[in-house]
């Protein structure tokens, strides 16, 4: 040891703001809308390395759609997008409340992140497959999955398509391109790559989309997914939803010393892009680009959706214990619903009155669905799945030991 060698100390990163502090996002660099050019879909990932450090944005502060990535959606599609986000937000609010009323055990909302899954869904083709996390219900809502069925699943009632076996919100719908959700983090990311490899092996034209949160990028399966996607040029779009918080752990704990999550893709030679996750138009445009790239055989794309989890992690979480209550309001990328609304007003295709009317209609739709679901049952009342059901479907054919156990249980 030389005389100038000092004892080492451990670096534990801290977020910029804790309860009681004033939120400060001044260090968070936000490029102006339209600043990032749209490369051709067959671009060499090496040629767009800067896109992993910038942010693709379409809507500017005045609500105008600007730059190369604008213009992909018709007015009708924008109206639809706004409606999907309103539906998801209202659905979330009603289900959160239902959980507090004891009608289900658990719920996870999307507040502030509605654009990510709602817009992405519209970039996929029928037959494509998402491998979602628990915060992409917009994929179902925007693809027309029946809301009553979602509620039946949340209530674990007799019409729950999963027969009460799964936690609330862990939906599954092959028909709607929505892989069965796991509660274990990151596992689905590498499965999406396998599904995409299977499509390529089979000479199919369908693609897969994997989803993971900022915190779970630290899981081994994230890295496995990246190396397999890279090696086999899998037709997959790999989405990181960076909502800044993994329960109480800020994104810096998973990100470590690298500048952005998207930059993780560089080591694998994967095209890596950051997008403004609160900008419906930007998410849709980048998703469309990445999906086309995958479908044409140019390989995987890693997309970091930069957004903010405005609510708690789940109904079991109280974020005021670890972050400032004012942080959500200070988040510089704003609110996705408000931004799309402002855009539609700016182009003369919307108004405050029409918005209020749309909100009322959406509330009515969600209430009607909720009444229908609750007429069947909730976790605490009404028709519930048979206990016999837990023994079914462990295997295609029930083996003798399970038959004996079911008899022993008396079902």
């Amino acid at each position, binding site marked *: 040891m030389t005389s100038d060698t000092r004892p080492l100390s451990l670096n534990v990163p801290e977020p910029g703001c804790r309860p009681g502090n004033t939120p400060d996002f001044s260090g968070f660099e936000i490029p102006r809308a339209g600043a990032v050019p749209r490369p051709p879909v067959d671009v060499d990932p090496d040629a767009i390395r800067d896109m992993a450090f910038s942010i693709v944005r379409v809507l500017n502060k005045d609500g105008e759609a600007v730059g190369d990535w604008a213009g992909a959606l018709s007015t009708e599609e924008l109206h639809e997008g706004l409606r999907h986000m309103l539906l998801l937000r209202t659905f979330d609010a009603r289900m959160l409340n239902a959980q507090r009323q004891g009608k289900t055990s658990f719920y996870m909302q999307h507040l502030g992140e509605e654009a990510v899954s709602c817009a992405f869904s519209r970039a996929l083709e029928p037959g494509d497959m998402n491998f979602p996390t628990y915060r992409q219900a917009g994929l179902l809502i925007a693809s027309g999955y029946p809301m009553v069925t979602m509620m039946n699943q949340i209530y674990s009632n007799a019409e729950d398509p999963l027969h009460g076996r799964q936690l609330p919100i862990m939906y599954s719908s*092959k028909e709607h391109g929505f892989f069965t959700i796991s509660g*274990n983090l990151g596992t689905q990311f*590498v*499965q999406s790559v396998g599904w995409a*490899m299977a499509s390529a*092996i*089979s000479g199919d034209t369908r693609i897969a989309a994997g989803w993971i949160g900022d915190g779970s990028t630290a899981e081994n*399966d994230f890295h496995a997914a990246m190396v397999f996607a890279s090696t086999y040029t899998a037709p997959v779009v790999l989405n990181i939803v960076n909502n800044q918080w993994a329960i109480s752990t800020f994104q810096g704990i998973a990100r470590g010393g690298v500048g952005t999550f998207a930059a993780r893709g560089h080591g694998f030679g994967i095209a890596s892009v950051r997008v403004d996750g609160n900008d419906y138009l930007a998410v849709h445009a980048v998703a469309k680009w990445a999906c086309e790239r995958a479908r044409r055989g140019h390989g995987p794309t890693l997309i970091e959706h930069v957004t903010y989890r405005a609510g708690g992690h789940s109904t079991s979480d109280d974020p005021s214990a670890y972050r400032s209550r004012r942080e959500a309001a200070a988040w510089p990328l704003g609110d996705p619903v408000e931004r799309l609304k402002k855009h539609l007003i700016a182009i003369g295709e919307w108004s405050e009155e029409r918005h209020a009317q749309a909100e009322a209609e959406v509330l009515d739709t969600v209430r009607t669905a909720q009444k229908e679901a609750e007429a069947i049952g909730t976790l605490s009342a009404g028709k519930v799945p048979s206990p016999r059901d837990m023994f079914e*479907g462990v295997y295609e054919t029930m083996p003798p030991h399970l038959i004996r156990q079911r008899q022993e249980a008396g079902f």
Partner: protein
Amino acid sequence: MIEAIREAHDAAMAADERVVVFGEDVGFFGGVFRCTAGLQEKYGKSRCFDAPINESGIVGTAIGMAAYGLKPVIEIQFADYVYPAYDQIVSEAARLRHRSNADFTCPLVIRMPTGGGIFGGQTHSQSPEALFTHVSGLKVVMPSNPRDAKGLLLASIADPDPVIFFEPKRLYNGPFDGHHDQPVESWKSHPLGEVPDGDDIVPLGKAAIRREGAEVTVLAYGTMVFVAEAAAEETGVDAEVIDLRSLMPLDLEAIVGSVQKTGRCVIVHEATRTSGFGAELMALVQEHCFYHLEAPVIRVTGWDTPYPHAQEWEYFPGPGRVGEALKKVMED
């Protein structure tokens, strides 16, 4: 046995283009034990290929492929290497059907060489079957000979649910009865070394009686089947040796029928003892055969230590130890 496993792959790949094979070194080279030799050349690189050294990635991608509609048959190079994939196997492969109410299923075979007797030390000798029999939704299979290896592998590939397929690596090149100091025998001279052509299956969940006997039932699988047979011959105890072949589902009927007949039972496995599959077998024998038992059931197993290198034969439950147990269970 290697050739039988290769033939099973070949037959399955020829019959069904959804069957794909991958794992570490399985493509061009044909696997470190040669179980997939020639498959890449015959069926092309997109149906038989090398994978990165990442077991959770191999299993995770295979689950995605199975959910797509393919039938992946993947190799984990040694059972000792499967642990990084445990989450994918337990939380995902085993659960897809149940949690999605069969919206998604996972017809997947995960093959892996298991067991010791090859001086592989603690990272090339383990028998982790109990880690998988404990998981609902998985099937667990372990053949003891080439004929069963082919038939059981074909049955596993045809199965609609995930199957963990253990291949006792000490049996790859011949029947091994634990007498490590004697010349290696080849499968050529053994009747079970004869493998029929075609794609006949050996059904999962059916045990085989390898040696009929009246005095004591020996429950064994994999390498221990031959060890038990040798112990019976060498001690003169008239043991009935049952080769379980499939641990999940388990042929309880065969076990109960035999133990009720003999009134005595010795359970043999190479894996460590505590919470090993032998504990489950012992519990089942107690539940179903208590009033027929003439003596306490005995387990002969690997010790509860890591699999040692230099002390391999002191660890391995060979015919000497099994013979002692047979004599003891007859005295009790």
